[in-house]
């Protein structure tokens, strides 16, 4: 049975990169949290992630998990964004051979997967070369 609620709840993060910043130590929580893992403070202000960054690491997934069965091979990476936040996402529009640590990337709105031909379509962010 499709369960759209779980993904819908994350739209502010997946569609608009909404995050929260700890009022005490400046830690940026993405997704937002109730407690700062750095200092234990429970108050935050609203912010948004920077949309550009550099790849810290990457790989090419050739044995995919079930919802991504028909997509492999695809590249994924962790990038450090301009605001210091580290984010995990697929890397697309890039030849595998061109992937390297330090590559500049930016966030783009893409489809992640869909539940068959009749289920919900899941959208979110991926990295593209900057």
């Amino acid at each position, binding site marked *: 049975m499709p369960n759209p609620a779980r993904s819908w709840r994350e*739209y502010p993060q997946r569609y*608009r990169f909404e995050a929260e910043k700890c009022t005490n130590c400046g830690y940026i929580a993405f997704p937002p949290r109730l407690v700062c893992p750095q200092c234990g403070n429970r108050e935050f202000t609203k912010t948004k992630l920077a949309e550009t960054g550099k790849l810290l690491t990457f790989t090419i997934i050739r044995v995919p998990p079930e919802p991504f069965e*028909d997509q492999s091979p695809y590249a994924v990476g962790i990038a450090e964004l301009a605001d210091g936040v580290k984010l995990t996402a*697929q890397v697309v*529009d890039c030849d595998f051979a061109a992937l390297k640590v330090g590559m500049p990337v930016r966030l783009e*709105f*893409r*489809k992640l997967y869909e539940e068959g031909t009749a289920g919900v*379509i899941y959208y979110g962010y991926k990295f593209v*070369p900057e």
Partner: protein
Amino acid sequence: MAGIVGYGAYIPRNRIKVEEIAKVWGADAPSYKKGLMLEEKSVPSPDQDTITMSVEASKNALRRAGIDPREIGAVYVGSESHPYAVKPSGTVLAEALNATPEVHTADLEFACKAGTEGMFIALSLVQAAAVKYGLAVGADTSQGAPGDALEYSAAAGAAAFIFGRDKLVAETLHTYSYTTDTPDFWRREYQYYPQHGGRFTGDPAYFSHILGAARGIMAKAGMKPADFQYVIFHQPNGKFPLRAGEILGFSRNQIDPGWLVPKLGNTYSGSSPLGLTSTLDIAKPGDMILLVSYGSGAGSDGFIFRVTERIDEVRNLAPLTRDMLDRNKNYIDYGVYAKYRRKIRKAE
């Protein structure tokens, strides 16, 4: 005076050449290239659709408009390849842009002119002071049936326009629409590919409506072809818009900046809108632009724009259409194309 406050384009980077498609079907590539005046077309990646392209084109429009998205009062995505038959592309777009919850939306369909119809509606709402800003997007990832002539040209792209009353980059001086019931090209519900009437799509369909709208709007405005710096016609192939221009008395120079189809293909609801973004990318303050779209079924929308000083300030705030068209291309073969476009029958 109302008009365009911001504009943005999005073109996926994959391309397939006419030769690649012709090879598979045993067709004569040179005659297709010559007959259609088409070399290659854009292909969406499997993770791209009308919604994803609309979001990126609209973000580019927002960058140029420099407005708070919460002030957008209406969002219209015109397409013949909306990802859902029920659940509007417009809500995903509005949510992604942070225009929700105070916003009107519903999806539009009118073959290749759904985008320009959306532009008319958004503009009109602004003129009626019903909304402060209205966003209209023409976007498609349309399919051509395997081996059919349309397979060579059916491409993917999106163009977005934010209409308002202030900070205009182009005033909208006149609008017009010329519509009849003409069954030249259609797709029944639950069918995967469209069908068309062959040569019937020419004179009684495309030309009748394009010429009807062009003549109608110029008469309404009391203008003639020489009064315009640029003209953009809907581009199902390279030949039709050039012929329309010739018949009406426009020169190649007026048509060329918006004539993207030879390297892009027919982006359907994005076709003339992308011609417009490409023209705005190079237009100068004071330039007069005529836009005439066409959608099968059939109808043509006309617009007359006058470019303002502000174009020079905002042009480079987002990617230029020709840059997206010409740079960073990824050529694919027919096998990858068929896989991306789900033309391969897979296991249940």
